[in-house]
């Protein structure tokens, strides 16, 4: 590896280490109920699912809308796996059903199992569905996610899924401990570590020989096939891997929320993720991450005042009523889609050179206005 490349890698590692350190410091200084933590955790979880969707939509060129379905699978698997047996046997959660799962696992195994279950279903669904193209694939995967949501609320499956009722008291973020000890794991750091590892794996995949094969399929299927790339096998691979990480992020979402209910994983959720991918730039990993933090911060935090009667110091309880936030939010999204149709990052990645250029650009503009 040449020197410039190595320096570049070292700089990236330092930047990432700084972020993780900052989170650790924040966790010990701020109150745990601070809204910042909600934004960071949910933003990180959405980053992972957005990146996994980007792997499929942006890098392999498969327009799939099944993300919510795979998150649902992940969330339920995690909740059922990590719920202690004593809770399963009691009436607290499984009120109307006898739970048939007689074991429980730690959070780590729960996360992996969540990914594997989602990946297994993706494998089965992929066999027929991946022979479809573009819009048809989107419709089929969307339909699959909706069917899954209905099936999980079916009372015949009640002994497994608790029907349409909530699942809770599993290993949520407050109950996760450091391995082999009882010391609680700093929750935000936990989310960031899991998401960080997953995104790192996806980045490594995209920059490998397989990643290039995926991009080749996106660019030109006929040419890719003529270069010896088996279309079906590589599409299936991308679909399964993407779903694995969607499953993991579903599990993290379950841990973040303290409760899981199938009702929540509507197609609206997939659209939210799609929106994040589009805003961030289709084919850009860092774009997806930035967009997901921005999106979550806007919808959960910065625009909250619009619903509460007071925004940017303006008191207008008649205007800033519940629901106004959604209106403003929609307008912002429309502006982004209309004027930044390639998203924040296009298909480029964030780099120090780009940031330098951006800062310089701002400086220059100010200079002119003087």
């Amino acid at each position, binding site marked *: 590896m040449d020197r410039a490349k190595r320096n570049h890698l070292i700089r990236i590692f330092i930047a990432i280490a700084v972020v993780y350190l900052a989170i650790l410091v924040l966790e010990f200084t701020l109150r745990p109920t601070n809204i910042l933590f909600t934004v960071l955790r949910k933003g990180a979880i959405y980053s992972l699912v957005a990146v996994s969707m980007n792997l499929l939509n942006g890098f392999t060129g498969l327009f799939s809308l099944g993300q919510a379905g795979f998150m649902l699978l992940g969330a339920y698997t995690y909740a059922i796996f990590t719920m202690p047996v004593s809770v399963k046997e009691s009436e607290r959660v499984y009120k109307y059903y006898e739970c048939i799962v007689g074991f429980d696992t730690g959070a780590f195994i729960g996360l992996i199992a969540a990914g594997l279950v989602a990946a297994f279903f993706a494998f089965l669904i992929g066999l027929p569905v991946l022979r479809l193209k573009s819009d048809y694939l989107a419709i089929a995967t969307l339909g699959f996610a909706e069917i899954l949501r209905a099936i999980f609320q079916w009372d015949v499956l009640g002994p497994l899924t608790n029907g349409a009722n909530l699942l809770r008291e599993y290993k949520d973020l407050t109950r996760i401990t450091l391995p082999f000890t009882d010391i609680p794991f700093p929750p935000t750091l936990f989310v960031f570590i899991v998401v960080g590892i997953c995104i790192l*794996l996806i980045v*490594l*995949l995209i920059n*490998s*020989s*397989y990643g*290039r*094969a995926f*991009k*080749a399929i*996106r*660019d*030109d299927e*006929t*040419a*890719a*096939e*003529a*270069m*010896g*790339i*088996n*279309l079906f096998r590589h599409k299936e*691979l991308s679909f399964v*891997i993407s779903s694995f990480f969607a499953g993991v992020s579903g599990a993290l979402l379950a841990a973040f929320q303290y409760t899981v209910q199938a009702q929540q994983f509507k197609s609206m959720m997939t659209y939210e993720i799609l929106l994040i991918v589009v805003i961030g730039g289709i*084919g850009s990993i860092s774009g997806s991450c930035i967009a997901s933090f921005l999106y979550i911060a806007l919808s959960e935090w910065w625009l909250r005042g619009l619903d509460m009667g007071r925004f940017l110091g303006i008191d207008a309880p008649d205007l800033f009523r519940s629901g106004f936030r959604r209106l403003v939010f929609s307008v912002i999204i429309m502006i982004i889609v209309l004027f930044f149709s390639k998203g924040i990052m296009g*298909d480029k990645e964030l780099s120090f050179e780009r940031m330098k250029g951006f800062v310089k650009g701002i400086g220059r503009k100010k200079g002119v206005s003087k």
Partner: protein
Amino acid sequence: MKDLLRLENVTMQFGGVVAVNNLSMHVGEGEIVALIGPNGAGKTTAFNCITGVYEPSNGVISYDGKAIIRNHPTGRMRKIYAGQESGKYADEKILNPTPDEITKLGIARTFQNIRLFRSMTVFENVLTAMHVRAKENVFSAVLRLSWREEKSMAEDAEKLLEEQGLLSHRDDLATSLPYGLQRRLEIARALATRPHLLLLDEPAAGMNPQETQELSAFIRQIKERYDLTVLMIEHHMDLVMGISDRIYVLDFGSLIAEGTPDEVQNNQRVIDAYLGVAEDV
């Protein structure tokens, strides 16, 4: 001379249109063979049959002495089949592999309208084509356990670019290259799959006489260097007559002539096909 590629009674029928009719031809090892014919004669269709893009309606294609593609009219095609020899292969097993399996056997192709990977650089285009020969699986690729293989792939790709004179454009976007170089890159990319048989679909399309001449030298050169057999479709007669060992002429899907360049040039049916037949007034 051993036959590397052999087509027997290959017919390709789309609905009622017989695009290739009972085509039989062979390409010997180390030959440069050209397939010519007026527009719409079925040349590219024949190529698409060989590379697995289309399933021929009837006939056998064998590579290196082994049948790789075989079909006979079945189902609806049985009723509407308008070609010949429909019963000849009826008892044999149907083989129809996908294009990537054909490539794995050692047959690589280029396209009439250049099909490079648009979002990739010149280097990545060549590297992507090496994926087919890679032994790594997805886990070892992600965890970088097979970094040695990746490294040797990168070195091979670089070497290939150097040999093709494209190294100075290594990190340029493939589609930003001038037209002639894009053609050359497409050939380089096909070579990266390590083929024995190279199929070139109109490599000189859109080139001026100067570029065409360079191309002809280039094809000869890669043939020697990589020990290739070449089958090409071409319209530029200077190129075809200059480098081909043998020529097949197609018209309306059927073979009308074959032979050395001299024989073909003086064949009355070929002249008629290209220039039309004079009618008595």
